[in-house]
């Protein structure tokens, strides 16, 4: 490719060129990754140069569940401390997406006006990313059976996370309660390791995949010999509050986020934010940190509370068995009309096996009013075997949603949905009613 070869010589022009491509592709309504691809091709050192020279460097957030909301929390926590944060907000959680987001932020000479970069990265993409841009911090959330159909095995995913930790130059923040993540500590030598943890009383609401079918009281899989001390521990979850323990004190704070798993990720975000702002002159101000945490709302498309016809409508994102089980536990069925929307597009995962690893007894009493999505009949079949009454089954989301809202008039509503089903539902909701986002 002589043209690209020629352009490569003109490194100096890579940023202006990338920005230009970005403008043009925006005008054409194109994707966010193309301009990033252009810069990557002509100037591979662009990202490394720009990001690693930030005062606080790069923090990478990875793991199977909760990356988007956790990244959003970390960003808001750091901003509460007066830091300027660069993040990949467009949801392009792969290297080219980061490069594209970066192009939007840098000036024409390629300088980024930020103190720190906080980047959400998909496990597999993070591996490539950290090879070219070694992060100063990483936060590794969990390894769940979500992307099995993409990576083959959970243990493989754990290896990807381990690689991210190994490439990190400063602090590695690990989930103490996920044995596959906690175990990564034993492979590290130079890094500072910090944990976020969960009170024993909450462990039961947070089954990991190994416990899933294990008999009660059966030994936990080999992890660490003893639980290490955690920097931040989630002690208690109230209706709209949470208790966190750090520095030997337990503090209660208000919470807009719902669901134990989201709030556990708040402990993760707090640990990373404390690491980044920790020590020396920049020591974190905890009052402002907690005030910021109390205000964090779920990221777009990650579970939201809307108002439809004057009644609350909760969208609960479910994308793997642990997430679905937690969703059912965190959002009890009583008094709610329930719909389940299951798609099997690539972004949802093609393999439907996981529905059989979720127990639906908690929906038996009220039943499920509507089941929809490309795999609606798989879902209905699953419910049949758990003896849960099913109202309507309709693979098309629009008519199913309309029927659900019509028949559940005057009742609060809840929809458990996979990712692409959630996007479709939001689209439909904005057509048939005024959608008011509550949190």
């Amino acid at each position, binding site marked *: 490719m002589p043209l690209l070869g020629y352009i490569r010589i003109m490194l100096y022009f890579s940023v202006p060129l990338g920005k230009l491509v970005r403008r043009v592709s925006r005008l054409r309504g194109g994707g966010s990754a193309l301009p990033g691809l252009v810069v990557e091709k002509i100037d591979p050192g662009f990202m490394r140069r720009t990001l690693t020279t930030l005062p606080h460097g790069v923090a990478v957030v990875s793991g199977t569940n909760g990356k988007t909301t956790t990244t959003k929390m970390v960003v808001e926590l750091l901003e509460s401390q007066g830091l300027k944060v660069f993040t990949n907000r467009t949801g392009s959680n792969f290297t080219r997406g980061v490069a594209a987001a970066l192009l939007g932020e840098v000036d024409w000479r390629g300088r980024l006006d930020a103190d720190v970069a906080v980047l959400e990265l998909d496990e597999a993409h993070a591996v490539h990313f950290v090879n070219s841009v070694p992060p100063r911090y990483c936060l590794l959330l969990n390894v769940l*059976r979500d992307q099995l159909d993409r990576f*083959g095995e959970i243990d493989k995913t754990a290896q990807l996370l381990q690689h991210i930790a190994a490439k990190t130059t400063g602090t590695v923040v690990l989930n103490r309660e996920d044995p596959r993540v906690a175990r990564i500590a034993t492979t590290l030598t130079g890094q500072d390791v910090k944990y976020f943890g969960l009170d024993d009383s909450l462990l039961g609401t947070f089954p990991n995949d190994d416990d*899933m079918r294990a008999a009660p009281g059966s030994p936990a899989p080999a992890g660490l010999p003893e639980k290490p001390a955690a920097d931040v521990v989630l002690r208690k979850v109230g209706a709209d509050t949470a208790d966190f323990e750090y520095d030997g004190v337990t503090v209660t704070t208000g919470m807009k986020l719902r669901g134990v798993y989201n709030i556990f990720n708040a402990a993760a975000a707090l640990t990373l934010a404390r690491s980044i702002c920790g020590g020396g002159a920049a020591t974190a101000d905890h009052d402002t940190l907690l005030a910021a945490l109390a205000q964090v709302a779920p990221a777009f498309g990650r579970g939201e509370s809307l108002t439809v016809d004057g009644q609350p409508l909760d969208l609960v994102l479910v994308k793997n068995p642990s997430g679905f089980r937690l969703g059912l536990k965190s959002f009890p069925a009583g008094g709610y009309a329930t719909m389940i929307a299951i798609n099997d597009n690539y972004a949802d995962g093609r393999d439907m*096996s996981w529905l059989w*690893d979720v127990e639906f007894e908690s929906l038996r009493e009220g039943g499920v009013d509507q089941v929809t999505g490309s795999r*609606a009949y*798989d879902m*209905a079949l699953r419910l049949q*075997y758990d003896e849960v009454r099913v109202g309507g089954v309709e693979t098309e989301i629009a008519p199913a949603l309309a029927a659900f809202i019509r028949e559940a008039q005057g009742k609060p509503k809840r929809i458990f949905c996979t990712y692409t089903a959630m996007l479709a539902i939001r689209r439909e909701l904005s057509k048939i009613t005024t959608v008011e986002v509550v949190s």
Partner: protein
Amino acid sequence: MDPAQESKGTIRVVQLYPRDMNIYGDWGNALVLQQRIRWHGYTPELLEYNVGDPFPEDVDIIVGGGGQDSGQLVIQDDLQARAGALKDLAEDGAPMLVICGLYQLFGRFFKTRTGAVIPGIGVLDVETHGTDERLIGNVKVATPEFGEVLGYENHSGQTTLGNGVRPLGTVPKGTGNNSSDGHEGARYRNIVASYLHGSLLPKNPAIADFLIRTAAERKFGSFDPGQPNDRFADLAREHAARRPR
């Protein structure tokens, strides 16, 4: 089953290694057997067998699933210690369903990519070779006994069948046992072995009912079927068959 109606008898299902070999919804197969036994008017008894447990007596149906490499290592010694009992049951005509990881370990051996040989228990005349290629996606199998079988495969081991077994069926969509032979699964006596998860039994009630019928005939001399409602299963099959690979 109408609770007032008397049970036609107890059928005991043993799930092999649910603690270590339960990936990809294998629990669904055990659940489907349990419920359909009930819907046919019998009483199900579901037992879990894990490493180190005493092996249950009077087994009527055995069901076993897939696991990760780490799970297979954990059960390896225990499975070898149970090889004799499982072989006797198989030769005696006990119905069994083994999926993915346990399908491989019910065979003669599994040779990993690095050349290490993990011995199987030799109930099935098959051998498996580890590869770098992962076979993933929706699968449709044409079978002489159970009609069209639908599921999802995810494996990197490729299995070759010996003369002692016959394939479960041929594969119009998907890969199946290996990337060259165009067939999927294995049949031997009353054993059904397959790479398909999904789980397999919910969308393929014909296989579930084969296992239950065989168990009932072995135990009681005959099978008196009930009438499970398979409307959702039929519709789920119809839709699954149309999903892309």
